[in-house]
């Protein structure tokens, strides 16, 4: 048996644990809320002919573009501060899955808004973010390109949502089952 008293208190350990910086954590949670909202707004707005259709579309576009701005800041911050290491005892396939899914997230967070923007450009719609303010088009009008981007926006949205579910499951698995501090690296709070 080990003598618990010979170890420092859990809180003290947690304080020394490497974590994402507060800025990284703030952006992670802001974007998590924003992206989950975007996914629900997206599928909701294309499923109704009620007046909510227009309301949801008018949120989808500016929120999507705001998330594009945030992810650019996020990537810069990530280059500057890096990420805390995963626990040494985490099996390497899990480490690989974590890394790969995080890269996929960064890719999707950049690609989705750009595809949405390009899709509206290809359709020759004004890209109105709010009353009287339009973004410039980023591609020339083209029916073929529009069809391609529309498919991509829709397909990647479903891929994105699936990944979010897996990511949440993994985060909760760290928090509730492994209790290895990975959750706290992003969530803050004391290590279990």
């Amino acid at each position, binding site marked *: 048996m080990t003598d618990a008293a010979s170890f420092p208190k859990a809180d003290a350990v947690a304080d020394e644990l490497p974590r994402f910086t507060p800025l990284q954590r703030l952006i992670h949670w802001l974007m998590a809320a924003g992206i989950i909202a975007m*996914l629900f707004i997206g599928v909701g707005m294309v499923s109704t002919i009620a007046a909510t*259709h*227009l309301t949801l579309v008018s949120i989808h576009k500016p929120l999507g573009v705001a998330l594009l701005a945030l992810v650019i800041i996020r990537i810069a911050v990530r280059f500057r501060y890096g990420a805390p290491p995963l626990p040494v005892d985490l099996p390497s396939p899990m480490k690989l899955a974590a890394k790969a899914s995080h890269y996929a997230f960064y890719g999707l967070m950049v690609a989705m808004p750009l595809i949405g923007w390009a899709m509206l450009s290809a*359709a*020759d719609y004004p890209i109105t973010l709010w009353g009287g303010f339009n973004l410039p088009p980023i591609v020339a009008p083209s029916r073929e390109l529009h*069809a391609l981007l529309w*498919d991509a926006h829709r397909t990647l949205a479903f891929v994105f949502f699936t990944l979010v*579910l897996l990511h949440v499951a993994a985060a909760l698995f760290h928090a509730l089952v492994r209790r290895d501090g990975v959750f706290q690296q992003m969530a803050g709070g004391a290590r279990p």
Partner: protein
Amino acid sequence: MADPTRSRSLLASLTAIGFVVGGGAAAFAYTAGWLSPDRLTPAKVVDAFAPPGGPALGHRRNHAKGVCFTGSFESNGAGAELSKAQVFEAGRYPVVGRFNFGTPSPVAPDAKARVRGFSVRISTPDGQEWRSAQISAPVFPVSTPQAFYELLQASGSKAPEAMKNFAATHPEIAGFGGWTKTAPWTASYAEERYNGLNSFIFTDAGGKDRAVRWSWVPEAPPVSVPADDIAKRGPDFLQEEITQRIAAGPARWTLVVTVADPGDPTADPSKAWPADRRTVEVGKLIADKVEPEADGPCRDVNFDPTVLPLGIRTSDDPFPAARSAAYAVSFDRRTAEAKDYPAK
């Protein structure tokens, strides 16, 4: 050695994770409408236009037959009193438009063109656009988008009583029905008056809102032609006539804005407003070139009536939102089917 408290809490943890993930997936499916087969989705509405043999791939799902025109909108400045949109400041703004009629078939004979359409996109130097699509009927057949869907189903139904039953539960259709039976026919797109029917809100520079509707009133005097005569004309007589007419000289329409009085039925396009409402002539549309649709400038335009400049917005009329959702589906499908409709 197995620790019973530990394995119980493991089970509880895994259950909790399952609930979060399963609940999230279910909420997503619900939002997307996958759990509500009764939800009237834009896709369902668009499907309802398709004739028994299926839709014409690559073409608009309604008002499928048409020709493009270009020209300009000459604003006289009178509209600036009603709306701060730049399009109402005196000036000349480029237009892309489309003459068309209500049919799911791009090869329907023009003699079928009872409900004729006029689609307009006006662009202003401030980068904004005003898109609209109006028809020759003075009222819409039904009061709500839901009822329009039911009308499409009834008219596509093989049940002999379907239309009769529909009319019995939607008496408002009598106004439109009366128009189709009694209104004179003309032999030209240029002789038609095109009505917006839906109500929108104009906001003036002082921030005051007014509910309005609008119509495009032709400069060419309408010449009425017996219906039997129309039936004998060639399948594309309307397109040929407008092409020749505009090649010889532009066709013009005056844009007349009607301002609602308080209490007028803004949410119901099947109800006309009283004839004595204030009207303002705000400018003239000049169509000076007609081009076939296949490689014309209107082909890939979605005349979505909710593409509006600042100074015009939607009202409590439920149609523009429904139209926007449905036109997008039609546009998404036809652009994806471009290979089925080659440019000539």
